[in-house]
């Protein structure tokens, strides 16, 4: 098992180098001189320009520049924002909890509804229920979430007035945020109504972000279940006189989960892409909105750093999923 994990980490190294190379070359791919781009409208004397080039290490050869960059990245230095002058890594960590909270809630929704729905569709094969579930899943899978979000806002905020339109919590409340998770912090603050406010802000974005992963997980669970239900060992379990609940819920589900876990892992990338849209729609102050804002502000160090950090996070999550995969699949654990 340890060997399996080490092998997975070893595969990550070239990918990490490639990802960092892409992030590194990003600024150099920009048309024009990066120093002048960053300086914006202020003019520059040639001496200032040379000094800036030297300060940024841009007067060295490209391989050396890359090594400098890699060294910085490995020590947590992703450069500084042109707009706020703050280190990219600090800006990232101040926004990451918002995205994490939203993503976790979306994932709970997607897994909590997607897996039972997929199982139900597989068990009731050929029924109206299955067609209903799979039809809904296909619609969810095809959903443009940048439309789905506004649609929910029209319905729940506009017509019904149940939920707020944007943000994480009503401006009425102010309290320290030790964890960065609004749901937890609002509870810790002890202020009346704070938790409800945080929850009502979170519900719509979480639903919107969960939509596509939910549909994908439901579809994958159904097909994995259908395959597993035809296996010999399911017949064996039935031949032992096990009740259907146990045959499906233990013997079949456990095996069907192996491909589903991989799918769930792949949804992390989908969640990050979805966060870009969802956070823009709901003005959710997370890293998706941060990236979009930075693209508009042409804050290139932030785009570069954010791109790399997000890729690293996805790689680490995939590593974690691979390890989890090894744990739930005995054929990998014991070899």
């Amino acid at each position, binding site marked *: 098992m340890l060997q399996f994990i080490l092998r997975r980490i070893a595969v990550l190294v070239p990918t990490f180098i490639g990802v960092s190379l892409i992030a590194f070359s990003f600024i150099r791919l920009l048309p024009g001189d990066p120093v002048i781009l960053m300086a914006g409208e202020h003019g520059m004397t040639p001496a200032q320009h040379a000094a800036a080039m030297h300060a940024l290490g841009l007067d060295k050869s490209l391989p050396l520049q890359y090594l400098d960059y890699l060294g910085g990245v490995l020590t947590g230095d992703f450069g500084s924002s042109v707009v706020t002058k703050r280190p990219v890594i600090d800006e990232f960590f101040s926004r990451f909890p918002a995205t994490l909270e939203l993503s976790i809630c979306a994932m709970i929704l997607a897994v909590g509804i997607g897996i039972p729905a997929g199982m139900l569709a597989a068990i009731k094969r050929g029924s109206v229920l299955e067609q209903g579930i799979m039809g809904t899943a296909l619609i969810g899978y095809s959903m443009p979430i940048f439309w789905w979000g506004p649609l929910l806002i029209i319905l729940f905020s506009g017509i019904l007035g149940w939920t707020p339109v944007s943000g994480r919590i009503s401006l009425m409340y102010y309290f320290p945020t030790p964890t960065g998770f609004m749901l937890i912090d609002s509870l810790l603050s002890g202020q009346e109504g704070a938790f409800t406010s945080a929850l009502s802000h979170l519900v719509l974005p979480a639903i919107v972000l969960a939509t596509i992963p939910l549909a994908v997980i439901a579809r994958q669970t159904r097909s994995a279940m259908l395959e597993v239900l035809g296996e010999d060992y399911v017949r064996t379990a039935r031949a032992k006189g096990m009740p259907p609940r146990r045959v499906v819920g233990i013997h079949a589900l456990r095996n069907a989960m192996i491909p589903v876990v991989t799918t769930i892992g792949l949804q992390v990338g989908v969640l990050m892409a979805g966060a*870009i849209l969802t956070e823009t729609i709901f003005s959710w102050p997370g890293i998706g909105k941060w990236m979009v804002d930075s693209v508009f502000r042409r804050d290139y160090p932030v785009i570069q750093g954010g*791109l790399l950090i997000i890729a690293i996070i996805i790689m680490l999550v995939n590593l974690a999923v691979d390890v989890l995969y090894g744990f739930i699949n005995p054929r990998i654990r014991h070899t």
Partner: protein
Amino acid sequence: MALEESISEEAAEELARNETPARRSGLSEFWYYFSENRGAVAGLVVFALLVLVAILAPLLAPHDPNIQFDNAQLLPPAWTSGGEWRFFLGTDAVGRDIFSRLIYGSRFSLFIGIVVVAIALLGGVTVGLIAGYVRGWLDTLIMRIMDVILAFPSLLLALVLVAVLGPGLVNAMIAIAIVLQPHFVRLTRAAVIGEIDREYVISARVAGASPFYLMTRTLLPNCLGPVIVQAALSFSNAILDAAALGFLGMGAQPPTPEWGTMLAESREFILKAWWAVTFPGLAILVTVLAINLMGDGLRDALDPKLKRS
């Protein structure tokens, strides 16, 4: 029954595919499985209608999509109070007819889908064929590069690429094609590796076929099944991603009647003019849904593993 016979039979079938009568029966068999899936047929019909609408847009649209009608800003759909029948689905904030813009918008969506899939498919299949056929260090290098591209969330990478290349529909399409292409590489490579040791390939090799012939004539036709299914998936993904970039202001630029861009323009009126948001999104959903329905049907018809059961 008679398992030892089936392999040689299959090999014979593969060989027979190069002749026209066998190919026609393959096509009719494909249609048999495809048409069994009612959803797929419905998707095909909707898609065909969309293609018609796109082609006949100038004839079908009641107005020029970019004409701004005076005193007709944010008119609701015709059947609601305050609506006018000449603006069937209402007008947007500057008084343009939404119905006409949607009709012209179908041209952009289909165009985006076709071009993006064509680029991603051609590039991906070529690279995948080479990687799977040559193997060795070149294969490793190619696959590592694909891993790197896949390490980024597709929309984020497309967004950043557009930030580098500059906003606009063409750049958005290039970015999306780059992001979608690794899937084709992986699929083709896996299919080639699965097929390359089969009897019919070895027999072609023994018969003295050149590597180019082997790759394009012998291997490629037998690897196309999963690639076609992926093409359908990518088609809908391309439309969705392009519309998403348009929504973020990084794709097609106003006043282009692209559906995602239309959504972006009407976002600020979301609570005031529901129709300006609802209909462009509905158009995207219906298009993507139709293509995905077709994709599912294609998979059922082309995936031999599912076919048997």
